[in-house]
């Protein structure tokens, strides 16, 4: 005969699954359903028959926080997609999530931020120059070496002139593409739980 303790246990489990599903948003819906069904089955089996609230709580504790579990599922999925994607958004999205989970991921995120930052800055300068030619450039003088966008032009001669836009555009694109390639390589090399042939040294 199932009593309120059973209901309490089941409610705990339902609550856990709701948070898990929330964390799995973005994955294909049938995959999410399968994951939720499997975790539900795992927790119910651990909770006993009739379900015991203490056993359910212990089972949940062993599984870890629902948001962490969801993050682990998603990291695997995202890294897989990122391996075949060139989109900076997809790559950085995967890398940022990876950064939250490991030190290597954090380092990779920094590389990505730096590379895309440089690329973005160059593209920004390239776009800005036709509009504010006095505020973008490469100024070289006796006490001055400035490359970038400024509010007030320094007291020095500006060297690039109208070449800023094409140069900035090309270099910016190169920086973005190179960063993407580097991130993809790092993800493929370090970013999975797949055990590799252990390397000594």
């Amino acid at each position, binding site marked *: 005969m199932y009593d309120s303790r059973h209901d309490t246990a089941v409610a705990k489990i339902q609550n856990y699954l709701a948070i898990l599903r929330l964390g799995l948003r973005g994955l294909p819906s049938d995959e999410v359903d399968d994951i939720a069904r499997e975790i539900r089955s795992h927790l*119910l089996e651990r909770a006993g028959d009739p379900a015991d609230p203490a056993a359910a709580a212990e089972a949940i504790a062993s599984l870890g926080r629902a948001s962490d579990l969801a993050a682990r*599922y998603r990291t695997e999925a995202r890294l897989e997609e990122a391996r075949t994607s060139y989109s900076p958004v997809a790559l950085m999205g995967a890398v940022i999530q990876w950064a939250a989970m490991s030190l290597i991921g954090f380092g990779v995120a920094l590389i990505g931020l730096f590379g895309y930052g440089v690329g973005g800055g160059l593209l920004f300068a390239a776009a800005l120059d036709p509009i504010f030619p006095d505020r973008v450039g490469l100024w070289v003088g006796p006490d001055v070496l400035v490359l970038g966008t400024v509010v007030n032009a320094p007291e020095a001669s500006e060297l690039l002139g109208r070449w800023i836009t094409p140069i900035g555009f090309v270099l910016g694109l190169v920086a973005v593409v190179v960063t993407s390639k580097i991130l993809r390589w790092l993800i493929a090399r370090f970013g999975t739980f797949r055990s590799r042939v252990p390397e*000594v040294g």
Partner: protein
Amino acid sequence: MSRHDEESLLRWEAQMRKGCLELAVLAALWDQARYGLEILSFLEGEDLEVGEGTLYPLLNRLRRDGLVTTDWIEGDLGHPRRYYELTSVGRALARSMSGRWRAFTDSLRSLLTPLMKESLTEEKTDV
């Protein structure tokens, strides 16, 4: 052993286990299809405890990679269990991984022989 050393040791062990986890899970499915809890208790029986929160995402990835297929089978308690079975690709990979693992541990074993001798005598005098 100092507490700091103990922590370093535990960290290294965790990394080592993590690296072997995939092979251990594939091996657990070698003789028969199993579902999550079965895999956990099977590995526990072999002194290879796996974190429950680690196993399920790993199984999901193995499925995505085509190394295992899954099947829902009704359990006695009325809720379905997800059984995992190796695919032929999964079996082939498990064999290869196992071969490399054995080759590696054989090399390591001969490398570690002098260490093992020394550490045995040290343990006798260790406080």
